[in-house]
């Protein structure tokens, strides 16, 4: 029991310390964002990197999520004769919840892991020290572009995921269950509010920034050679996943209120 408490205390201590250090990094990033020169070329490169790495998986995930949503809703709602609502359930679920969260998990797993591994490798091979000796601030040069890309690219990917998911739902509702095509679009459209869409995009942007920040943090402060890079990478993905899922609840509660 005592050992358990000690373990728990250790975890809480490490959690608060890490949170504090991530926030310090965030402050540094924000400060560096305001000082010229803007790293425009670099930021574009990073944005493209995140997009290219994530798009294929986002497409596949979104289409199947839309499809399974339609499948479940149709069979479930049929019991009380509400199968005409498939369109609105798919549209609401995708835009408000599934789009941003699934895209976030994918971006964390692909682009985020790559960020942690790349920065971690740069740390242990002294490339980050080399940047410093060449009078270049590594936070500004490496982290700021990734952070901005995360903020911007995540909502873009999420819009794509939303659309593809709704199309996936359409395929099942209309082609497989032969419900009315017009009704699917009408229901999807009628009950969807603009706030659903931009609420989802606010979440997406928040997730994108957090993923970049956490994964860069893990990579940037890597210690202990190649083994350390591996640890940093898995750590980055796990913490990003938890952060997305936990903050999703609180963001949703805040957006609803």
């Amino acid at each position: 029991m005592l050992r358990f408490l000690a373990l728990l205390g250790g975890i809480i201590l490490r959690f608060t310390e890490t949170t504090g250090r991530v926030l310090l990094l965030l402050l540094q990033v924000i400060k560096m964002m305001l000082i010229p020169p803007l790293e425009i070329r670099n930021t574009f490169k990073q944005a493209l990197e995140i997009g290219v790495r994530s798009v294929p998986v986002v497409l596949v995930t979104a289409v199947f999520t839309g499809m399974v949503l339609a499948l479940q809703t149709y069979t479930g709602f049929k019991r009380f004769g509400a199968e005409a609502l498939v369109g609105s359930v798919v549209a609401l679920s995708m835009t408000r919840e599934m789009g941003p969260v699934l895209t976030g998990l994918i971006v964390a797993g692909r682009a985020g892991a790559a960020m942690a591994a790349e920065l971690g490798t740069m740390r242990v091979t002294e490339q980050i020290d080399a940047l410093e000796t060449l009078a270049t601030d590594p936070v500004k040069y490496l982290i700021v572009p990734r952070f901005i890309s995360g903020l911007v690219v995540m909502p873009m990917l999420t819009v794509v995921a939303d659309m593809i998911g709704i199309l996936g739902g359409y395929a099942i509702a209309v082609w497989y269950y032969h419900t009315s095509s017009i009704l699917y679009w009408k229901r999807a459209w009628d009950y969807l509010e603009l706030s659903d869409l931009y609420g989802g995009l606010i979440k997406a942007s928040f997730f994108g920034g957090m993923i970049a920040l956490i994964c860069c943090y893990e990579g940037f402060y890597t210690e202990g050679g190649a083994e350390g890079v591996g640890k940093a990478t898995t750590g980055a993905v796990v913490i990003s996943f938890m952060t997305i899922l936990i903050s999703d609840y609180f963001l949703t509660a805040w957006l609803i209120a």
Partner: protein
Amino acid sequence: MADSVIEVVDVHKSFGDNHVLRGVNLRVEKGQSMVVIGGSGSGKSVLMKHIIGLLRPDSGRVLISGVDITRLDKKHLYEIRKKFGMLFQGAALFDSMTVWENVSFALTRSGMKDREARMVAIEKLRLVGLRNVEDLMPSELSGGMRKRVGLARAIAHKPEILLYDEPTTGIDPIMADAINELIIKMREELNVTSVAITHDMHSAYRIAGRIAFLYEGQIVEEGAPDEIQNTSNPLTKQFITGSFEGPIKVEGISVS
């Protein structure tokens, strides 16, 4: 006194319980070629990182041309850094860039156009004896070539001070001698002040104007190469002759 470019004054540094530097004092004059020798893990790299301000000491001062860099804010520190070029032990080339982009990094960062930067990079690569490598990626180079590209990058912005972290470690003896030769050439042609750290005594004698021996976190002896060679200090003597027997004990091994 006026002419000392680097002055390390009573620097202490610990990492947790590991008290690495225990009051290091070192002075390097303008145009001098200082070599710091010492065993693996004795803190040579840590000392070098203090000289260029990558690490801050727990106590003590580091003066570069009379300016205490341990108290500078980032902006002024980066200004001072422009005086330095550093060759890292593993070369630390940027993996994601071509050779010429590596070499001209500091130049393009300070606004030089790509075309011109590429020309300068090719010229610097020639200076270290490399041709037709400018468009390769670092992963395509051998260890010795990587070090030479690292050297070209370190000299591209015409630094006044060059730092070499184990320039000859991990490459074959012939390539090592070529690197020694280059270090001498840099001093003669570019007229720089330099600090090299190494545990390779052969290299130390070749390139050094002065040699300092770092042992247990302090500089225990400093002098011209022939003074070091004829030292009466038993610690230094054991180190430079590479003898197992002497006052320095290798943990876990004993002869009886």
